[in-house]
């Protein structure tokens, strides 16, 4: 279980996390989505006991990170967004060192390390120097390292960032396997579709605030409730914008390039028909009225846009 309660982090006067409340139940794979600088890594560093919150607190497996960080460390596997390796270590020794650091006996290490190397597909690199591994391999090795003490909770900060498409897919396969092992996983990304497939729940963070949370299908439902519509006009831009802004179901009208206007629409299909009819009657010189094919990423963009303006 992972829970944050009014989690707040300030860097000087800048608020990176603002009263963040999360609740992730055991065995859930939780996707934490947000744009660059949204506060994902900050949240993860607090969960990993690497940083103290300014206010509020977080619980991992029922343990308060501000009260008993030692206990939290034993149950989490943390993979930072950027990390280094001890370059003079070989792959196996690298894992062996961290295993020992978690107090695993030599026999336990001997047993678990080959399994982990197998899991992350690095068995053939057992004797390579860590420094000579490719970026994707290092990333997988770091994931294996975070699993060495068989933690209940995994905190993975953009584990697939900087990887090529093939390596991304490999990483996703490994994570799916971890999910079947029943671990509670919180994983961040700024690309929503990447997470959608393997996450049970998604939280969207923007400017340090949690702005949407729910299952992937719930988020998809939100997407259907809010359509994105693009209207093309030849002239009378101002008049057109005023016309659509007057409709109660229209939100967030924006002027696009070369005569296009974009807005969110939350009315029903019948309302939409009426809107088109009214527009024609009002002499709006429409060339086209188009509902955007939206995918999860658009929803995400929409959600974050709304917040920025509100």
């Amino acid at each position, binding site marked *: 279980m992972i829970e944050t309660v009014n989690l707040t982090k300030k860097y000087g006067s800048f608020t990176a996390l603002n009263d963040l409340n999360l609740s992730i139940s055991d065995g859930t794979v939780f996707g934490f989505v947000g744009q660059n600088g949204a506060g994902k890594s900050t949240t993860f*560093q607090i969960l*990993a*006991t*690497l*940083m*103290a*919150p*300014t*206010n509020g*607190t977080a619980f991992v497996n029922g343990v308060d*990170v*501000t*009260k008993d*960080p*030692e206990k939290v*460390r*034993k149950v*989490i596997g*943390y993979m*930072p967004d*950027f*990390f*280094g*390796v*001890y370059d*003079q*270590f070989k792959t196996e*020794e690298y894992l062996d*060192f*961290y295993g*020992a*650091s*978690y*107090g695993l*006996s*030599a026999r336990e290490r001997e047993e678990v390390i080959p399994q982990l190397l197998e899991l992350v597909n690095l068995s053939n690199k057992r004797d390579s120097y860590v420094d000579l591994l490719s970026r994707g391999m290092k990333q997988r090795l*770091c994931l294996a*390292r975070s699993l060495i*003490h068989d933690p209940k909770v995994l905190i993975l900060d953009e584990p697939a960032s900087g990887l090529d498409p093939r390596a991304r897919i490999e990483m996703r396969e490994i994570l799916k396997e971890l999910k079947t092992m029943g671990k509670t996983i919180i994983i961040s990304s700024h690309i929503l579709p990447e997470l959608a497939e393997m996450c049970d729940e998604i939280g969207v963070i923007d400017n340090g605030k949690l702005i949407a949370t729910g299952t992937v299908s719930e988020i998809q439902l939100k997407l259907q409730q809010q359509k994105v519509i693009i209207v093309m006009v030849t002239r009378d831009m101002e008049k057109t914008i005023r016309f659509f802004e007057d409709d109660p179901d229209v939100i967030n009208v924006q002027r696009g390039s070369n005569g296009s206007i974009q807005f969110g629409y939350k009315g029903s299909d019948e309302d939409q028909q009426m809107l088109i009819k009214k527009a024609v009657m009002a002499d709006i010189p429409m060339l086209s009225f188009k509902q955007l094919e939206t995918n999860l990423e658009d929803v995400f963009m929409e959600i974050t846009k709304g917040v920025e303006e509100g």
Partner: protein
Amino acid sequence: MKSTLINPVLNKEIRLRFRSSKSYIGIASYLGILGLISLGFIGLTLSYDYMGTFRPEESRSMFLLISMLQLALVIFITPGLTAGVISSERERQTLPILLTTAQSSTAIILSKLISSLSFLLLIVFATAPLYMIVFLYGGISPSNVVASFSLYAFAMLVIGSFGILASTIIRKTILAMVTTYSVAFFMTGGLAIITLMLTTFSYQFYNQGTDYIWPFLFASLNIPIMFFSVFEPSVMMEFQSMSGFGFSPWIIFFSFYSLFIVGCLIIAIRKLRPNMKIKSKS
């Protein structure tokens, strides 16, 4: 049992250190420098000696020369070996991962200290054969050698503890090094100069018949002067009689620096990880 004796961090540090060729080059050049200077000294002494022999007095001054030189090298090398141990892991981004393991802050700091100092101790012990030459010609006792080696170890601990503290609280290795070198040079050269300057005032006090404790105090805190006094106690005795203090300068020396070592290490251990407790707003 074994795993509690050999801490994994210590084990790793020692293994990695001996894997790097830099370490061997370091040992070799250290021995080279010391060996060349000793041989040069013997050569020079012999060429000026009308009898063409190496006498015990000469052997003794050579011992003093090697010992002081070695102390200088220890003071010079310790900051370089310790001031990067934490900050370089921070710079190479291996520190956050290490800090999320189950290793306690105490274990990490002490392992780092022990591993860097044991490397330096190894270098110093590797110079032991040089002392054999001195023994061969006489003039010094084994207890002199033991005393000097113990003082090397103590000097390493003093400067090394500060180096680790600097490395923990200063983010950049370069800055931590500069700070540690400054402190090390102040403790050695700086304090010696202050002692010297204070001594120049001593005659005034002597004439007035009052006690003058400052040169004694500063000299007691100066590692090279104290080291020298093991072999040539006269200077220190002079300071002591001037000060009117009855007790040994070694009491001041060891109590001050023991507190210093413990203080540095405790702060480093406290500061290694963030204090997770939320500061209550006042």
